[in-house]
């Protein structure tokens, strides 16, 4: 199964994915989303699920069942857009509160044995060289912290550049 997390509107998504999506969960900005409150309830009250029960409360379970996570986000300051970052912040039930040491640095232990392929497409017509550097490092760090098997980062100016390339 694949998970797509995107800040694009329906028209742009239809341009990128003209055929009906199969075996895919599409997480898009089509309803109110609450931001992560930093309460850690997803670790110590309802382990594995966010305590905020809006449509984005089961991201942990969602990620545990996929083989690929495709993120399509406008690049903000070398990072994800506010909506996509909100979804990613609400995804920490996917990991475990305990720490492990990987390559000399502390990270969170995995809750599941799952290792998805993380693909991130950043779009924006004026992404600076420095923002690209930050974004590349960010995706690498996210891949380590989310226990991804591999990752890739692509920058495009607009949606037209992604057409036919994103699958």
């Amino acid at each position, binding site marked *: 199964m694949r998970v797509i997390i995107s800040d694009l509107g329906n028209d742009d998504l239809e341009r990128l994915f003209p055929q009906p999506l199969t075996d895919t969960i599409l997480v898009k900005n089509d309803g109110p989303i609450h931001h992560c409150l930093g309460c850690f309830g997803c*670790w110590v009250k309802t*382990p594995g*699920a966010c305590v905020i029960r809006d449509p984005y409360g089961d991201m942990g379970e969602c990620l545990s069942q996929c083989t690929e996570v495709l993120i399509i986000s406008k690049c903000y300051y070398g990072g994800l857009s*506010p909506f996509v*970052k*909100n979804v*990613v912040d609400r995804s920490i039930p996917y990991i475990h509160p305990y720490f492990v040491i990987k390559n000399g640095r*502390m990270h969170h232990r995995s809750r599941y044995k799952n290792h998805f392929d993380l693909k991130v497409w950043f779009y924006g017509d004026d992404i600076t060289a420095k923002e690209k550097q930050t974004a590349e490092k*960010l995706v690498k760090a996210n891949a380590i912290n989310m226990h991804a098997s591999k990752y890739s980062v692509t920058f495009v100016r607009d949606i037209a550049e992604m057409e036919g390339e994103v699958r």
Partner: protein
Amino acid sequence: MKIALINGSPKREDSASGLILKIFKDFVAGDENEIYELHFCQPQLKKEEVAQLTDCDVLIFAFPLYVDGIPSHLLHCLRQLEWAFTAQAAKEIMVYPMVNCGFYEDVHNELAIEMMENWTVRAGLKWGQGLAIGGGGMLSILKRIPLGHGPFKKLEAVFKKLAHHVLNRSSGETIYITPAFPRFLYKLLAEVGWRRSIKANGLTRKDLFLRVGRGPRP
């Protein structure tokens, strides 16, 4: 000089970021300085807050690291501020972010600080200096142990250095600080803390490992 102390934690009270700012305030307070304290805990700023910030000379942010970056609600606020700052006449406003993370190593905060630097450029402001604090899980110790003592004893010297830059509106390299405390003990104490928390919620230690749905076991 008008200095804004901005708490970027989504927690309404008792946040490590709030504690950091409370302590740092004493290093920049003075008769010649007006201090404004703001708490960005929602993804939307009020008009009055935006107006107050555009009138400041210095913006000091303190926030927690969220998944290698800036928490989403704060990102919304930064976007709103970017519009406000770029729309107004140029005024040299300095930016100093302090980022803390639950991981032991301070270096995890590097990317959030870079993003703040990138935001500073977009908003037409001037970069001051970043502060990266590791071992954020231990910061509450500062409530009980005086500054200059305990695992964060270096923080006093770090705050003096940062305050010097703030008061002189100057820039510097990012400062990194990790607690003077063994990493294996920090890790162990964190695990004890999670076990206590889950038991306090009426669950068991094993429940920390619950898997929702059919995700495979590690």
